[in-house]
């Protein structure tokens, strides 16, 4: 099991990404992420005049009917990682890595995975505005650029996810994979609208909802003066309100889960205390055993 805090302390992000991917892939019966240039799609009844080389003779022997195999031409998958680097992502619970460090691990692992299966990965880092953009390209050199950008990313400013998503979607010209890694403390309707737009455009959209256990459960005792990391607003609260806080937090998570599911998006709740390889494995299993495309 990989410890997120330990991994985030390692400066070699490429190594960390590789270790994370290996951890995620170990135990799966078959890696569903090998790319094929031509991939079997479906059977259909044979029609006169069709090329006999596509007839599945074994099936004919079993069923006494002639079926031809249809293939779908596949291209390299293009993934755009959209990473929230606002100030709220700097939060670090009592244990584990900060949310940004965790997001960095997930993004690096996905980029590494895509690159080593010959696909293209890109990166968008944003807070109030887009701070870094790397288009989706294959190759190790580009992977290093992505990892370097991720390594140099520090939390800062407020969050403006819809605008960043819109820009990333527009720049992802052909259909691809859009992965949003954020704590989603933003305009929910605006973010969902952009994600749904991406899905309508044919993109495969995944949301990694990065949270810490502490902010979900409120473990602090007594009176606490809390300060919003992005707005600087200060409030005084106490343990007596922890139950209501937890209820609202769970409702927030549940709302995001339901809205993503309803929109056909993949939603992954990534708590920073969970090993990143487990989170990645959960994501891969959630997507099914098909190739990433």
């Amino acid at each position: 099991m990989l410890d997120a805090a330990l991994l985030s302390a390692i400066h070699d992000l490429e190594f960390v990404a590789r270790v994370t991917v290996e951890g995620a892939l170990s135990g799966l019966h078959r890696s569903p992420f090998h790319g094929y240039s031509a991939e079997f799609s479906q059977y259909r009844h044979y029609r006169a005049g069709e090329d006999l080389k596509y007839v599945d003779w074994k099936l004919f022997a079993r069923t006494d009917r002639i079926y031809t195999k249809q293939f779908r031409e596949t291209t390299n998958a293009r993934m755009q990682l959209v990473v929230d680097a606002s100030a709220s992502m700097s939060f670090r619970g009592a244990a584990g890595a900060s949310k940004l460090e965790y997001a960095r691990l997930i993004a690096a692992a996905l980029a590494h995975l895509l690159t080593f299966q010959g696909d293209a990965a890109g990166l968008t880092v944003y807070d109030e505005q887009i701070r870094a953009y790397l288009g989706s390209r294959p190759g190790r050199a580009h992977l290093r650029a992505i990892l370097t950008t991720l390594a140099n990313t520090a939390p800062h400013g407020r969050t403006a996810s819809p605008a960043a998503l819109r820009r990333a979607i527009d720049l992802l010209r052909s259909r691809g994979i859009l992965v949003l890694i954020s704590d989603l403390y933003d305009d929910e309707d605006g973010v969902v609208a952009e994600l749904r737009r991406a899905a309508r455009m044919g993109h495969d959209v995944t949301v990694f909802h990065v949270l810490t256990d502490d902010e979900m459960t409120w473990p602090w005792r007594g009176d606490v003066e809390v300060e919003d990391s992005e707005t600087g607003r200060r409030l005084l609260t106490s343990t007596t309100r922890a139950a209501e806080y937890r209820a609202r937090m769970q409702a927030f998570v549940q709302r995001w889960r339901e809205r993503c599911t309803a929109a056909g998006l993949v939603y992954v709740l990534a708590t920073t205390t969970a090993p990143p390889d487990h989170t990645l494995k959960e994501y891969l299993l959630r997507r099914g055993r098909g190739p990433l495309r």
Partner: protein
Amino acid sequence: MIVWLYPAAWASLLAVAGPMIVHLLRRQRAPRMVLPTVRFILLRDQSAVRVRMPSDPGLLLLRAAIIACAALALARPLFLSDARSAAWAQRTARAVIVDRSDSARGFVSDEAVTAATLSGDPVIEIETVDVASSLKRASTWLSQSPPARREIVVLSDFQHGSLTGADVRTVPKGIGLRLIPFAPGTGAARDVPSIRMLATDGVLNVRAHFDAERTVVSYQPAAGPFEGLDIVAPPPIVDRLNRVVSRVGAFAPSPTQPVVLRFQQPGLATTPSSPVRDWTFAAGQRLLRTPAIAGVPVKVAGVARALVIDADVDAQSLEAAELVKAALDARPDPEALAEFETARIPATVLAGWSREPESPEPEAWQQSDESDGRWLWAAALMLLGVESVVRRSAGAVGEREAARAA
């Protein structure tokens, strides 16, 4: 029964509210924490930070008890027990007045004084040349002394006139009076040398004769020049002043003790830093103590064996006349004149004035210098120790919880 020697200190019991007030007024500083968002903390979740229940009522009560003990100790409680009352009754506060006048000199021995003061608890020894006025001082001191039987002991030759029944009656009831004569019953007859007095008819020679039975005073017109008084003023004013003083009466001026009076003259007389202790020094001191000229701006100096008086008053005013009379009367020593008396107060009169001290009055505890507040101080210190232990243990629990939370 318990009494309080300083009940005003009960007001300090209000300080018991101190810890509670401090608790309520102190702004509870909640630890600050930066959260990713406060959107899940609604405004109504804010906790009141001022008014809140005490976090540790036991500790608060302990601190209040410490302050209460200290406040009660400051009020100086006193337990009035029979034993304490008996101890007070056995104790005698004594004021010993020793007559050190010329007439008594040589009669009052140190051994007698020591014997009189030895058994007093507490005791004060008052040496005086005026026994009558010292009685008041002794009475005042005794009235402020701790609870005890109170007694005034007078060691004197008891010249006739040195003490009267009126003086004795000023001594408060309950204070004993013991008069111990230390001189032969009656001294030898004495004559006072001639004293020149100013009167309406001019200067008179006054002669006095003291013996055991009577005092004989004779007046005779005096011949000779009117010398010894120099008033620096216009002659009409000087004449008017002399007439006023002669009408009132005063000791006549003397060429051997000259007096110079100056009114509103520049360059006031100043006393030398090391004055010559001749007659002018004592006369000047007596003059300045004269009640009749209290408040009159006067400076006195002895210059060439003459008493020079500078006054910042109008020479035609009544104050100027009072000053002339005071200056003339200040020259001879009245106390020295009194010492010529040879008659003594009879022993039967002294016995009639004497009385035994009474037991302390019930209200005598108000003067007590004792207090049982030490027990309360001890209790406060003990509670302070307990509070320290409780506080440390509470702090240790807090640290453990904080460490667990961390």
